[in-house]
């Protein structure tokens, strides 16, 4: 892996321009590609998913002048091809993670700290939203399915639309709780 090369501002600008002539849209596309490459590396079991995604992007950036002239098709798929090579090199290099020490455990907060953060974060949401979240994740197995069916009917939503809405709220809640816990652990 060529970890020595770092993209220049000029090369990075060319990369954005290749993704989209509109700078703002180009920035969004860049972020989307990066996020999805990280996810793909994580799904392939790589601890250092972010590093590998950035390495893939750097390699594409190094060739962007040439690509802008000759490459046809969705740029995301070119990134994917490069990411696949980066992954294979990584596999060859450490053959495989069984030899590596397990990644360090994250510091764990007590339930008391965590509950206080859940209370704080849920209080920041409109009451209906926080109740929806708690109700959506209530119960287990059959009771949970029945519960979600009723909840969807009450809100006039399809089950899948409810599922997407609940997931987006949960992601927000997780971010809020984690940043609250970071503050609590720091004190």
């Amino acid at each position, binding site marked *: 892996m060529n970890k020595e090369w770092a993209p220049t501002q000029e090369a990075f600008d060319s990369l954005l321009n290749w993704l989209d002539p509109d700078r703002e849209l180009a920035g969004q596309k860049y972020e989307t590609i990066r996020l999805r490459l990280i996810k*793909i590396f994580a799904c392939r079991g790589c601890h250092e*998913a972010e590093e590998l995604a950035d390495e893939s992007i750097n390699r594409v950036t190094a060739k962007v002048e040439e690509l802008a002239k000759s490459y046809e098709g969705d740029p995301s798929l070119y990134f994917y091809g490069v990411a696949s090579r980066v992954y294979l090199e990584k596999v060859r290099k450490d053959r495989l993670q069984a030899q590596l020490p397990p990644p360090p455990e994250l510091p764990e907060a007590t339930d008391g700290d965590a509950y206080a953060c859940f209370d704080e974060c849920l209080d920041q949401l409109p009451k209906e939203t926080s109740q929806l979240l708690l109700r959506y994740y209530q119960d287990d197995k059959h009771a949970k399915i029945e519960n979600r069916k009723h909840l969807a009917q009450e809100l006039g939503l399809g089950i899948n639309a409810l599922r997407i809405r609940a997931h987006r709220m*949960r992601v927000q809640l997780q971010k809020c709780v984690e940043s609250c816990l970071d503050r609590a652990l720091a004190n």
Partner: protein
Amino acid sequence: MERTQELDEIRQYLLRQLSEDQQQSIEQRLLVEDDLFEELEITETQLVDDYVAGNLTSEENKQFDEHFLSTPERRQSLQFARVFRRYVDSRPIPRNHRAVKSWWQRWEGQAWELRAAAAVIAVAVIAVALWFAIPRPSSELLATVTLTISSSNRAEGNAAQKIPLPSGTLKIVLQLPDDSAPETIHRVRLIGDDGETRTFEVTERAAKTVSLTIPANQLKRGSYALKLLTVNAAGAEQPLSGSYLLTIE
């Protein structure tokens, strides 16, 4: 591809159960399809919740531990899911919270004569409803459907069999692939089009079929994929490839 098959494929992708070709195909789509990417994230969360709730098979648990928990972010999501589950369990919310409140408020505002008359009518209606609703031993409410396996490969996928929502218990008879023996199939996983998964015990075995029964109140309208679960030589439970597709209308 049927939605349930797609959800199953995403789940297999997350547990690293797909072949290299299938994996590459799904990864290329993840880079260009926004909906699929969001579906992956939702399925990832559901998988973590299923792990926390103990709803994965022993083989899936193993794959989850060995492959899924490879990044700090995912281990953090697992910690979050564990505490979130305990938090939700500690704060039960009445299921019909809003509906009960508004109904009760309206009820309290009525005159007592009207409330008494309404109560008498309600008791009569409940009595009649119960008379009709209590199952009689003579009326066995059992619907049966027989399904054949569909390859998980998109190009070869069969159409889902459609049946109306049964009023009683649904018996599902699954025709086994030629290389499967009924005695090796212990349980069947049911995957709904909302990503919910449940497992059912096999209740009957014949020469080339296994059957399971599902009470109607555990089903709703929508698409389902069923997967056979077997036990491998190491004693771990794992899904066989291919799905049975069913649509309840």
